[in-house]
Structure formats: structure tokens, C-alpha cells
């Protein structure tokens, strides 16, 4: 799936979202957990940007920062050129219409005391849209996501996981957003249901011209839907390329390891499975230099002393590795 390069819809510039750590009886500030550490990239209008990485790499925090559910310490999030971190009050409410979310937890993200009509129409109700107009839009939306009008008076707990995710999608669409942060939207679903929800997301993108930030840990799911993919490790973006390039020619050793862990990839690509040793280092005390060096089979002295910047190793293919060219030779 590739599209012509479009204009930028959302751009992150040096985004840093840190969580303060407190210790001791007086809860004194003892350090920072750098969940997102100096991340910059741009998402183009109409594309699906996949964001992958292991649990705890900061991809969810990054999504939550864009949704203004976390407050970043530094950096800018430009949406259509406007820094949304600087927005407040009614301006923020207006921006929120354009940026919506689909959550992983289909159970917890739907209020158990609201029926589908109230759930899906909530965004419109918040905006002050009148009852009749709201009902009309909700009735249209429930069918758009593949459920039926008869379901509108029921409650979320009466539906299966896949159906609940459809409800969540309808709710996100209600305010006619331009951009949707989908945080692991299918990882809690059965395999058979996953593809249905992915197809729905893909259809909706075409129908409504949506742009997605698709966050997942499952690379095969990301490959299916994404135009471009970013790889995160310990709060940093370590590789960024079109989905095709990334899967065919990963330049960062971490990405290579991640891809080789996809079931069946040995057979498909002929590349041997790379088994990483050791655990992910703590994001509270990340390693010096390259964050991946403690588990990297190619690490040398320079990796400990100098942090590799994200650089364009090939047109539109960015990697943060001192040996990105060598890594390619080795993997080939």
C-alpha cells in the first residue's frame, strides 16, 4: 500500500513526555521516567502511520500525548500547523473534535451505564448538538460500523469484543475527526475478529479520508494497514520508513530482531530468527549512547559513547544506528 506523498497533517517536534518518580516518605522527586524521549516525525494527511515496539517502549504514551491525556514536558505537537499543546479552553475542545481515539480496552472504554445511543452520541452532546440531529447521526453511524439500529438501546456489555470495538469506532467517528489515534485496537480481539475490524478501519479511512496513527506490537497487523512505520525502543524512535522498505530492508538491528520474531518470517524472508538476549533496560536509567546497545549483537565502543541520531540512510528511510549500512549487509 503506497500513496503519493501528501501534505503533513500532524507533526511531532522533539516530543518529551516524562513521568516524575517519587520516593521516600516525603515523596521527594527522585528521577524521571522518560516514556517518550525526543521524538520527531510527521504524519501525512490520508496515510496510516504504524507505530511499533515492545511493551513499555512509550508508544502508548506517545499516542496519549497527542490526545492530550498526558502532558509532555517539552516539544511541540503541530496539528495542521497549530501547536495543540499550547491550546486550551474552547480551542482545545474544537481541536479534540478533529483528533479522536480508539482504545485497546473495549470493555473499560465504554461506560457500562450508558446505552449505545448515549455512548456514540456523547461527542455530539458535548458539542451541544441537538437531540434530533444527534439521533439521526447516531443511527447513521451505527450502520456505518456494521451494527444495527435495534442495538442502540442496549448496553455495551451485551456485545462481543469485536462489536464493542465497532461501538468505540462509531463513537470516535461521531465528531467527524480528521485524525484517529488507534492504540492497539485489535490486540484484545480474537484472531478471526481482528481482520474484520482492520477491514472496517481500512474502509472507513477511504470513505471519510481519515488519517491514522496505528499503535501496535504485532508487526503483521501493522504491515497490513500501514503506509509508513515507525519503530520505538525505550522512548525513542529508532527507525522510520515506508512499510515496504521497513519490512524488506530493516536497517536498525532492533527492527531486524523484531521482524524476525514474526511467526513464519524465517520461511517467508529466508532470514534467520534473531534471538535477543537480556531484558529491555529500565527507561528510568537508559543505557548511555545507543539505547539498544546492551542487547545488540553488533555493538562496539562507539555505541556506548555516542547516541546515534535518526538519519536518512536511504531516501525516506531513517534509522538511528551507527552501523545502519553494515546492518543491511549482515541481514542480507
Amino acid at each position, binding site marked *: 500500500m503506497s500513496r503519493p506523498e501528501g501534505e503533513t497533517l500532524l507533526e511531532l517536534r522533539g516530543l518529551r513526555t516524562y513521568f516524575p518518580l517519587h520516593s521516600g516518605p516525603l515523596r521527594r522527586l527522585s528521577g524521571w521516567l522518560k516514556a517518550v524521549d525526543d521524538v520527531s516525525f510527521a504524519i501525512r494527511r490520508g496515510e496510516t502511520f504504524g507505530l511499533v515496539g515492545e511493551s513499555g517502549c512509550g508508544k502508548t504514551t506517545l499516542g496519549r500525548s497527542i*490526545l492530550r491525556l498526558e502532558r509532555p514536558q517539552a516539544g511541540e505537537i503541530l496539528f495542521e500547523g497549530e501547536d495543540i499543546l499550547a491550546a486550551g479552553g474552547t480551542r482545545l475542545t474544537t481541536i479534540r473534535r478533529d483528533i479522536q481515539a480508539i*482504545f485497546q480496552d473495549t470493555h473499560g472504554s465504554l*461506560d457500562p451505564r450508558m446505552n449505545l445511543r448515549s455512548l456514540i452520541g456523547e461527542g455530539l452532546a*458535548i458539542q451541544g448538538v441537538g437531540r434530533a440531529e444527534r439521533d439521526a447521526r447516531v443511527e447513521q453511524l451505527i450502520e456505518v460500523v456494521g451494527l444495527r439500529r435495534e442495538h442502540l438501546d442496549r448496553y455495551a456489555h*451485551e456485545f*462481543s469484543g469485536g462489536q464493542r470495538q465497532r461501538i468505540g469506532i462509531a463513537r470516535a467517528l461521531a465528531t467527524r475527526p480528521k485524525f484517529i489515534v488507534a492504540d492497539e485496537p485489535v490486540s484484545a480481539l480474537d484472531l478471526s475478529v481482528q481482520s*474484520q475490524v482492520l477491514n472496517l478501519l481500512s474502509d472507513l479511512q477511504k470513505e471519510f479520508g481519515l488519517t491514522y496513527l496505528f499503535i501496535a506490537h504485532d508487526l503483521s497487523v501493522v504491515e497490513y494497514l500501514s503506509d509508513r512505520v515507525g519503530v520505538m525502543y525505550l522512548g525513542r524512535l529508532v527507525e522510520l520508513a515506508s512499510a515496504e522498505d521497513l519490512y524488506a530492508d530493516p536497517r536498525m538491528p532492533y527492527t531486524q530482531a523484531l521482524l524476525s520474531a514474526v511467526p513464519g518470517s524465517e520461511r517467508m524472508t529466508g532470514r534467520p530468527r534473531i534471538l535477543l538476549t537480556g531484558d529491555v533496560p529500565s527507561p528510568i536509567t537508559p543505557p548511555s549512547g545507543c539505547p539498544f546497545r546492551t542487547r545488540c549483537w553488533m555493538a562496539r565502543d562507539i555505541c556506548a559513547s555516542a547516541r546515534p541520531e535518526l538519519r536518512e540512510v536511504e531516501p525516506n528511510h531513517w534509522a538511528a544506528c551507527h552501523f545502519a549500512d553494515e546492518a543491511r549487509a549482515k541481514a542480507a
Partner: protein
Amino acid sequence: MSAQATPDPMPVAPSDALDGIAHAAPAHDFLRRALRHRSFAAGLGICLIITLILVAAPLLAHLNPDAQDPLATFAPPSAAHLMGTDEFGRDMFARVVVGGRTTVLACLGVVVLGGVVGSTIGLIAGFFGGALGFAIMRMVDLLLAFPGILLALAVSAILGPGLVNGVIAIAAILVPVYARLVEGAAVEVRHLPYVDAATTLGASSRWIILRHVLPNVSPGIIVLTTTWLGIAALWIAALGFIGLGVQPPTPEWGAILSDGQNYITIAWWITVFPGMFLALFVVGVNLIGDGLRDELDPTLSRR
């Protein structure tokens, strides 16, 4: 249920539908559904009967709770005095009926006042948390550390005796109790993903508190309210007993009870009849509370 008369909706997608779908009645069916809940129906029945007696009896017969008859003191129940008479020869039926109105209204006043103020404080502290929440909850802890009767006495002493002041005094005991319960529940709800979802939709704090947090902490509030409706009656009686609250000769169930206990060995009817009404009232209210708690939670299956 009428919803089942409509045709069963078709599955949406072959493998993604049907499982886990149950029929839920629309919201306007609420009362009808609630009445099928046995304890709710029983509680409502008991409370309706009590209300009927308290409202209708004075309309059907002239009741004077203060009329004394020195020739008929401690008369046992008879056709002339359905519930007997007390030490002044006052008709107990008149006193129970008229006193019941005072008691029921005062109890409602206590839980409404204490509940609204306490829940509001708890919601604010629980939702916003931080330094504000911490400060509020330490105040609540301070109030909770006082024995309830001491708090009520202090407030009564400041405001002076009287039924209204008594209600305020007892509501003051309830405020920290509600605040503590609601704060705990609100903290829990605040961190649930659907609150994030509402924030993403542009909801204000007020919207989230009223539309998401309050409905989801309401089961606890309802149970606490129905429990305290009964306890409030006893507190009002206690205040009356020590000279604050309701002043004699105004009849009130609690006051009649504490008065009648002096004569329980020679005139059981003075305590038994108001006691019976008080107990029935408390039981009825609690049954309603159980039913409401179940019915207001759509995730609890009724089948």
C-alpha cells in the same frame, strides 16, 4: 417484555455477532423492570402502605395527639384507642400517625442534606485529587474521628434545639461518611478508560463528574442512603431524648419510643406500635435500596 416481541435482530457479521447478546429493555421500561425485582416491589409496597396510613388516617378521623385523658392512662388497645394510651392518656394511634410524619420527613431531610453535601465534597476530592483532594479528605478524617453523637451535640448546641436544627446536626454526622465513600469510588472511576474516552471527546470536568463518575458511584450512595434513613430515625430520637431536637409534647417515633421504654413492663403498646412502624419503615427503605442498586446497574443480569 415488549422488546422480545420485536423480531430478533440479524447477526452483523458471521463470527462477530450473536455471542453475548441479551435483550435489554429501553430506559423507559425502568419502573416496570424494577417492579419485577421482588425485594424492590416488597419494599415499595411497605413504604406505600406506611405513607398511606400517615397521610390518610388524619383525613378519615380527627386525630389529636396532644389531647390528654386523665381517666384513661395506660389503657390497652381497644376500639376507642386502637393502639392504647400512654401515661397521660393520650391516644397512641394519633401519636404514632402524627409522629410518623415528623420522623419520616426528618429522616428524608437528614439523608438528602447529608448526602448531597457529602457526595459533592467526595466527588470533588476524588475526581480532582491532588493537594485539594488531600486537604478535603484530611478534614473528612478529622470529622470521622469525632464520635457521631458528639458532632451532632456540638452542632445542636450551636444552632439551638428544634427539629430543623436537629436534622442539620445529624446531617453533619453523615457528611463525612458520604464524602469518604464517594471519594473512594470516584478515585476508582477517574482512572477508568471511559473517562479518558470522554476527555478525548472534549468533555469538561463537570461533564465527566455528572455523566460518568456520579452514575457509576451511585450504587454505593443508594445503599448508604437506605441504610442511613433508618439510622437517622434513631439519631433523631437520641437527640430528642437528651433534650435537643424534637421538643415534647410534639410526637415523633423515636421520642415516643424512648419515652415508652419507662413503662414497657406495664404498657407494651406504647413502644411496640411506634417501634413496629419504625422497623417496617427501615426494612421497606432498605428493600427499595437493594432493588434500586440492582436495577440501576445494567451489567447485573436479572435473568
